[in-house]
C-alpha cells in the first residue's frame, strides 16, 4: 500500500435473514455478509446518508429510484435519452447524472465529486441499496476482502485503499508502440 493514500476498513454487515435450514446446510453458513460503505450523497444541496453496497458485479454505480426522489433528482428532467440496463429479471431504462459522494471513515472522509450514477427512469420495487460498481468506483480504490481475518470466522473485515498511480499510462502505450519488432529465431 502506498503511504499517504486514503484507506478505510469496515466490518461486514450481516443481513438480518433467517436462512432456511436446507439452504444453510447446502451453503455451509446461515450468515449473509454485505460489504456496505457508509456514504453521504449530495445533489444540488440535498443530502442523503446511507450505506451503499459495494457491488463488484455491477458495471456502474446505480442510484435506486426512491433515493433519487429523496435527493430531488428527477430522471425525467435529466438530459439525454434513456438506455437499457440489465436488471434482475428484466432490463431497466436508465439515465445518467453525477452525484457528489463522501465515503465516511473513522480515519477521515474521502470526497468523490461528480461520481456518475445510473438512475432508473421508472419506479422500482422499494428497499434497494445504492450500488457502487466497477466504473469508476473500483478503478479508484483497491478492495481487500478479509473474511476470516478476525477470530469470528463468519464476520471478517474488508478495506478500501485509494489507488495511487505510479507510472503514467502513456509510457506503457508508447513503449508498446515503439517496441522493436521481434526477430524470430528459427
Amino acid at each position, binding site marked *: *500500500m502506498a503511504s499517504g493514500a486514503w*484507506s*478505510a*476498513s*469496515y*466490518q461486514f*454487515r*450481516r*443481513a*438480518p*435473514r433467517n*436462512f432456511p435450514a436446507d*439452504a444453510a446446510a447446502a451453503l455451509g453458513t446461515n450468515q*449473509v455478509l*454485505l460489504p*456496505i460503505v*457508509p456514504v*453521504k450523497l449530495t445533489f444540488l444541496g440535498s*443530502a*442523503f*446518508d*446511507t*450505506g451503499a*453496497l459495494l*457491488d463488484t*458485479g455491477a458495471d456502474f454505480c446505480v442510484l435506486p429510484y*426512491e*433515493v433519487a*426522489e*429523496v435527493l430531488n433528482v428527477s430522471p425525467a428532467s435529466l438530459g439525454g435519452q434513456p438506455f437499457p440496463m440489465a436488471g*434482475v429479471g428484466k432490463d431497466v431504462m436508465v439515465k445518467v447524472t453525477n452525484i457528489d459522494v463522501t465515503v*465516511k*471513515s*473513522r*480515519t477521515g472522509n474521502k470526497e468523490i465529486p461528480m461520481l456518475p450514477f445510473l438512475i432508473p427512469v421508472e419506479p422500482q420495487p*422499494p*428497499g*434497494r*441499496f445504492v*450500488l457502487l460498481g466497477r466504473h469508476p468506483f473500483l478503478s479508484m480504490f483497491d478492495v*481487500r476482502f*478479509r473474511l476470516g*481475518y478476525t477470530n469470528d470466522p463468519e464476520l471478517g*473485515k474488508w*478495506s478500501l*485503499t485509494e489507488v495511487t498511480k505510479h507510472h503514467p499510462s502513456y509510457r506503457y502505450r508508447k513503449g508498446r508502440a515503439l517496441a522493436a519488432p521481434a526477430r524470430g529465431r528459427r
Partner: protein
Amino acid sequence: MTKKGAETPEEAAEPVFAEMSSENLAGYAGEWVAFVDGTILAHGLSLREVYERANKSSPTEPPTFYPVPSQVAGY
C-alpha cells in the same frame, strides 16, 4: 512495517455503523430504517415517508438510512 501497537487499516474496523447488526434490524426486513446514534428514529416501506419523519425527529443531526434486505438475493 507497522509499529507495534499501531492499528493497521484492517484492525481499525469502522465502528460507525455498529448499529447495523442483525439483532437491531431483525423486525424490519423489507423496510427502510433511519438511525441516529444507534437509535431507530423511523422505519417503513416508503423511503420518502421515513426520510421526512426521521428528519423531523432529528433536525440537527442527519439520520442515516438503510434498506433492510428481506430475502436472499444474488446481488
